C-alpha cells in the first residue's frame, strides 16, 4: 500500500490540468436539457475529443488513451476541479461504451464508439417502461424479427419512459422482448436504435425544474437492422444488468463531483457562519468526511480492480452512499440559504446562481434512478449478506 502518486501520474495530472485551463468555458453553459444548452454541451464534447480527452480509459483505436482507473480518477479530479461542463454524452461513454466493449462485435465497436467519444452521436438510455420502473424485468416493449427484401429487421413496438437525454439525443439503447410470450428476465434482447427513425416518437417530460430532462419514447412499427442488436438474442437481461452495474459502479459518479460540492458547502458555511444554527458546521464537516470516504473507497476499489479483483454486488453500497450524501449536502445548503432557497437561476439574488436549488432537485432523483435505494438495500441484504428473498 503506497498512497503516493507516481511521477507519471503527477505528469498526467499536469497535462490534464494544463489542457483544461486552456479550454474550459469561462462561463457555465446553459442547462443541457435546453435546445441551446444541449448543442453547446455537444460542442464541448467535440472540443474534448479534439484534445483526445473524450474518454481517456478507452483504447486508442476508439478515440481513447488507454488510461487505467487511477488515471481516470485523476482525470476526473482535474475535470471537476476545473469546473468543466457536465458530460452530455454520459449515457454513451459511461454506460453503453463499456457494454459495447464487452459484448459488441468488432463492427459494432468500430461503428459506434468513435462517434460516441467525439460527441457526434449522443446517446439516450431507454431502461424504464411505464410499468417497469424499479421492476426492470416487467418489460413489455417488443422487437419482432422480420425479413424484407432479403434484409433482417427488428420491428419495435411499445413504450419506454424516463429516458434521459432522449429529447435532443441521436441514438437510444434499451431491452426489448424478442421472444413473444417470454416472461420476466427471459426472451429479452439489447437493441440500439436511432431516435429519428420512422415510427419513433419522442414526448418530452417536464421535470422538477421545468426542463425536459427526460422523455417517453413511443415505438410504432419502427424498424432497425438486426445488426443493431448487442449480444445474442435472448441475452438482453444479462447485458442490461452488466450495464446497470456500470451505472451503479465506479464511473457514473466519480468522487470529485461530491468533493466539489463538499468544498462549496464549506464555503457557503463560512459565508453564513454568523447566522446559522450551532449544529450546522458539524453537519458540513460530516459531509466533507463522507465525500473523502467516497473518494477513498473509490481509489481502494480501483486499486483492487487493477490488481485483478472484480466488483460485485457491493456496488449497490456505492449507489446508496453517493446518492444519500449528495441529497444531504444539498439539503444542508438549502437550509443555509433560508429565505433565498426558493430562488431559481433566473433570480438576480439567487446565491451561487441557483446551483444549490438545481443541485437539490437533482439530488432528490439520486435515491430513485438506476434502481431505487430500497432496491439497492434489498440487493445488498440478499447478495452480500445472504438474507432470504421474500
Amino acid at each position, binding site marked *: 500500500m503506497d498512497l503516493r502518486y507516481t511521477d507519471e501520474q503527477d505528469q498526467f495530472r499536469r497535462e490534464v490540468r494544463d489542457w483544461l485551463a486552456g479550454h474550459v468555458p469561462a462561463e457555465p453553459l446553459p442547462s443541457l436539457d435546453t435546445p441551446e444548452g444541449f448543442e453547446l454541451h455537444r460542442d464541448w464534447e467535440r472540443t474534448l475529443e479534439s484534445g483526445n480527452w473524450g474518454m481517456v480509459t478507452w483504447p486508442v483505436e476508439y478515440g481513447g488513451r488507454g488510461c487505467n482507473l487511477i488515471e481516470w480518477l485523476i482525470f476526473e479530479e482535474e475535470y471537476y476541479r476545473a469546473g468543466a461542463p457536465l458530460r452530455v454524452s454520459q449515457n454513451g461513454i459511461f454506460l453503453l461504451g463499456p457494454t459495447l466493449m464487452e459484448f459488441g462485435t468488432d463492427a459494432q465497436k468500430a461503428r459506434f464508439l468513435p462517434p460516441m467519444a467525439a460527441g457526434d452521436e449522443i446517446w439516450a438510455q431507454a431502461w*424504464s417502461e411505464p*410499468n417497469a*420502473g*424499479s*421492476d426492470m424485468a*416487467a418489460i413489455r416493449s417488443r422487437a419482432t424479427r422480420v425479413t424484407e427484401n432479403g434484409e433482417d429487421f427488428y420491428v419495435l413496438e411499445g413504450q419506454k*419512459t*424516463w429516458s434521459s437525454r432522449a429529447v435532443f439525443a441521436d441514438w437510444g439503447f434499451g431491452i426489448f422482448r424478442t421472444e413473444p410470450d417470454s416472461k420476466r428476465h427471459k426472451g429479452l434482447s439489447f437493441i440500439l436504435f436511432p431516435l429519428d427513425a420512422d415510427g419513433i416518437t419522442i414526448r418530452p*417530460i*417536464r*421535470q*422538477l*425544474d*421545468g426542463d425536459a430532462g427526460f422523455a417517453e419514447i413511443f415505438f410504432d412499427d419502427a424498424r432497425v437492422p438486426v445488426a443493431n442488436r448487442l449480444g445474442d438474442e435472448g441475452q438482453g437481461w444479462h447485458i442490461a444488468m452488466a450495464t446497470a452495474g456500470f451505472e451503479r459502479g465506479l464511473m457514473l459518479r466519480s468522487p470529485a463531483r461530491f468533493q466539489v460540492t463538499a468544498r462549496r458547502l464549506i464555503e457557503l458555511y463560512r459565508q453564513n457562519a454568523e*447566522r*446559522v*444554527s*450551532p449544529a*450546522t458546521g458539524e453537519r458540513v464537516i460530516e459531509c466533507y468526511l463522507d465525500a473523502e470516504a467516497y473518494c477513498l473507497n473509490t481509489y481502494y476499489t480501483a486499486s483492487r480492480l487493477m490488481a485483478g479483483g472484480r466488483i460485485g454486488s457491493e456496488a449497490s453500497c456505492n449507489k446508496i452512499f453517493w446518492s444519500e450524501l449528495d*441529497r444531504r449536502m444539498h*439539503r444542508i445548503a*438549502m*437550509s*443555509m*440559504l*433560508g*429565505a*433565498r*432557497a*426558493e*430562488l*431559481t437561476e*433566473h*433570480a*438576480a*439574488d439567487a446565491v451561487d446562481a441557483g446551483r444549490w*436549488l438545481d443541485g437539490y*432537485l437533482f439530488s*432528490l*432523483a439520486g*435515491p*430513485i*434512478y438506476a434502481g*431505487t*435505494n*430500497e432496491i439497492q*438495500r434489498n440487493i445488498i441484504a440478499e447478495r452480500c449478506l445472504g438474507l432470504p428473498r421474500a
Partner: protein
Amino acid sequence: MDFTFTTDELELRDGAREYLRGRCTPETLRGLVESGTADLAGWPELVEMGFAGFLVPDSAGGLGMSDTAFVLLAEEAGYVAMPEPLVDVAGIAAPLLAALDSDAAAQIAAGAIRVLTSHPLNPYVNQLGTGDQVLRFSDDKVELIAAADIETTTVDSIDPLRQLAHIETAETAILAEGVEAGTLAARAALRGALFTAGELLGLTAAMIDMSRAYAVERKQFGVAIGTFQAVKHHLATAFTRLEFARPVVYRAAATLDGDERRARLAVAHAKIAAADAATGAAEAAIQVHGGIGYTFEADLHLFMKRVWALCGLWGDRHHHMRFVDSEILHGHLQTGPATTFAANGLASGQH
C-alpha cells in the same frame, strides 16, 4: 387546561376544508401554472367565505375568530397548496390593522382592499397585484404603502405559484414608529411564523395522502408498492412526525398572547417542528412516487416546492433554533416536568 378546539372552530374548519378542496384542486393549480400566472381572481370568493376577515372583530365586519382557529384555516389552505396570500392579508395585516383601529381592517374584511406584508425576515413580497397595499415593517417604522407607489422587480421562485417581488418605494404612510413599531414587527413575525407552520402542516398531510394514494395504486413486481415495508415505513415515519408537530403548533397558537418569551419559544418550536415534518415528508413522498414525482405530471411537485419556499419564510430553522439555543442552553428558562405550561400555571417551583 383544555387542549381541544371548540365545536365552532371545528365546524368552520370543516366548512373551509370542503370549500377549498372543491375549489382549489390540483387541476386548478395546474391551470394556473400553465397560464403562467397565479390568477387571483378567486379572492372575492375567499372574502365571501369570511377568510379575509377571519381575525377581524365582528364590529369591523369580520368573523372575530381566534388565532387557534386561524391555524386550522392555514392548515386547510396548505393542504390544497392555495396560492392566495391568506396568511399575509388575513393572518397578519388584518388583525394588526384592527388593533391599530385602522379602517383598513374593515376594508380587508369587506374585500375592498388586500394588504400584503414586507418584513425584514422576508426579502420579498409575494403576490403583489395592482390595487393592493403593503404593510412594511422595519426596525423603527411600520408603513402602509399603495402598490401604485411601489417600484417592483420580479424575482423567480421555484414555486410557480409564488410571484415574488423586490419592492422599493419612497411614498409611505407611517402607522407606527420607534418602540411601538418594533413591537408590531415582532408580533407580525410571530404570527407569520405560526401561521406558516400551520400551512406546512397542511402541506405535509397532503403529501402523505397523495403518496398513500399512489402507493395503493402503483404496482411493481406484481403488487401495489404500498405492500413493501420500506414504503410503509417511509410514510409511517412522516405520519408520526406530523402527528407530533400538530400539538406543538396548536400550543403556540393558544399561548400567543401569553408571556412574551414563552410565546416566542413556542412559535420557534412550532416553525421548526412543522418545517422538519414537511421537509421529511417531501423527501419521503418523492421517494415513494419514484420518477413520476420528479415531473410536472404528478401533483406532488407543487406541494414540495411550496414547502421549500415556506421553510425559509418568517425566520428559517437557523433563526428559530438560535433563539431556542439562547433560551434553553444559554438562558435560564426552567425545563423538565411541570414547566411546559409554566407561564400559565403553578409549576416551575413558584410553590
